[in-house]
């Protein structure tokens, strides 16, 4: 596997070093662990996100004004150890509590869970919101077992804005949980990403095949089919997504078309064009559309579509400014997408 790395066991440390070499004006490393925090921290509820590395710009690209205050990074595709989570939370706690936001994966739940116990002993209050946006990962009746994918972006965005406004930990948790409950994603894989240092592909997809609903670590999806044109594929994904999210004509959504690594922006725009058209036909208003590769899996090919169903409260927080080197949202006033 060709990869621009040095030692596979050092990729996370070296990624952090490179990130900080570029952005040390705004961020600093947490001593002795793979964690990064904002330099200008405020007297507010602290937001901490994180998970396995290898999905850049997730998670380190989500720290900033109106976003997360700290990020805890595990090895490639592996949850961060409890001590790492603990140190990052301790570094950002301003005495108002810490909200953890991370994707619902066994490893993350175990490690963050252990860190929560350690933090309790230190007298630091925490709450947790698990991101469960991947509608393909479990049926509706087992919604809480679903995994988190690109929906992390919306959930952290809303949480960051709520915390920035000065809400209490309970209030921030409540609105963040609501953001998660309103966030629905589905992905499609065209080709696998590789694990740095691995000599074999983690799974294979034939040249003319795609898998609908495949997870970002190659978790099996709903259906493996032949390649198809962008519009037909987008329609297929939206059909499932719209059914799951129960969106009705007149509803408003924020949309994210997220590339998984090697799928080009050109392809993503072609998908987004179709998403916009289908939503319009259904009478669903796109309040905002974001086309980017935030949640990737190395050179994995494919994309995901995420819909955040907005109500007035979520819209306010969504519209608040947010700034990181990899995520920017100017303050949104008025709906430019509305006709």
């Amino acid at each position, binding site marked *: 596997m060709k990869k621009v790395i040095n030692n596979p066991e050092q990729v996370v440390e070296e990624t952090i070093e490179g990130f900080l070499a570029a952005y040390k004006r705004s961020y600093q490393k947490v001593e002795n662990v793979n964690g990064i925090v904002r330099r200008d921290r405020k007297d507010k509820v602290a937001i901490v996100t994180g998970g*396995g590395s290898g999905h850049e710009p997730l998670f380190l690209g989500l720290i900033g004004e109106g976003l997360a205050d700290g990020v805890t990074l595990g*090895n490639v595709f*592996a949850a961060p150890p*409890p001590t790492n989570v603990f140190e990052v939370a301790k570094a950002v706690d301003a005495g108002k509590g810490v909200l953890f936001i991370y994707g619902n994966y066994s490893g993350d739940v*175990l490690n963050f869970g*252990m860190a929560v116990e350690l933090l309790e002993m230190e007298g630091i209050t925490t709450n947790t919101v698990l991101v469960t946006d991947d509608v393909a990962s479990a049926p509706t009746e087992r919604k809480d077992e679903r995994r988190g994918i690109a929906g992390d972006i919306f959930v952290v965005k809303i949480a960051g804005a709520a915390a920035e406004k000065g809400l209490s930990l309970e209030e921030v948790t409540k609105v963040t949980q609501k953001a998660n409950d309103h966030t629905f994603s589905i992905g499609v894989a065209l080709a696998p990403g590789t694990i740095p240092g691995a000599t074999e592909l983690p799974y294979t997809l034939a040249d003319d095949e795609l898998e609908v609903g495949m997870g970002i670590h190659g978790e099996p999806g709903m259906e493996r089919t032949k390649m198809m044109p962008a519009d037909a594929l987008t329609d297929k994904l939206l059909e499932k997504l719209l059914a799951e999210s129960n969106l009705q004509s007149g509803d408003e959504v924020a949309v994210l078309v997220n590339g998984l690594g090697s799928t080009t922006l050109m392809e993503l725009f072609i998908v987004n064009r179709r998403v916009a058209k289908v939503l319009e036909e259904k009478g669903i208003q796109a309040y905002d559309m974001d086309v980017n590769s935030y949640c990737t899996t190395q050179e994995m090919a494919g994309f995901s579509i995420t819909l955040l169903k907005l109500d007035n409260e979520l819209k306010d927080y969504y519209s608040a400014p947010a700034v990181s080197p990899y995520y920017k949202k100017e303050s949104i006033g008025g709906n430019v997408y509305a006709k």
Partner: protein
Amino acid sequence: MPNSLQEVQLNAVQVKEMFLYVGEKVRENKPLLTKIDSAIGDGDHGIGMSVGFTKAEEGLRQKEFTTINDVFKTIGMSMISTMGGASGVIFGTFFIGGVKGLDPQEVLTLPLLAQILEGSVSSIKQRGKAERGDKTMIDALEPAVEGLKQSVIGNQSLLEGLKVAESLAEKGVEQTKEYVAKFGRAKALGERAIGHQDAGATTVWIMFTAMREWVENAINQE
């Protein structure tokens, strides 16, 4: 076979040496574990275990040990604080769960090993919420530990006990092929996970094999 072999017991330095050897064996099997885990898991188990045992080795080599407790604790804390993933917590708990609350011990005998690992099993089950048949490392560990306990009752030597544990762990690994997974990426596979063995259970088997080998080699060198 001379009598002393039946009564083999290990001091803290020997236990440390034994686990250094176990780590070496697990690291040697990194490609195999990666392959097994890639089939139904997320493919990081081999890398994670390798990182964990490398850090455990660093921890073990930095210190002088007088108690068994300290050896286990050093390995477990190295794993918990460096590996991450589900494996970090679970295999860290393998080493820490059993010595938690245990009075300082200077020699490892078969009864003590059985007692420590029995504590590990219950700690792991409590933390990971897995039971037998869920296609996890518990499927190899629990029968292996039962084997150790049976060997204690049968007045067997440490080596005999480890042989029994090794073979029951191997059988446990084989049985994981028949199970649907309840955790991790494999869970999403449903019935498609059947036919594949669990990577964590495989690691447990490798660990018991390595412990048995080390004790056997130590006896042969006597």
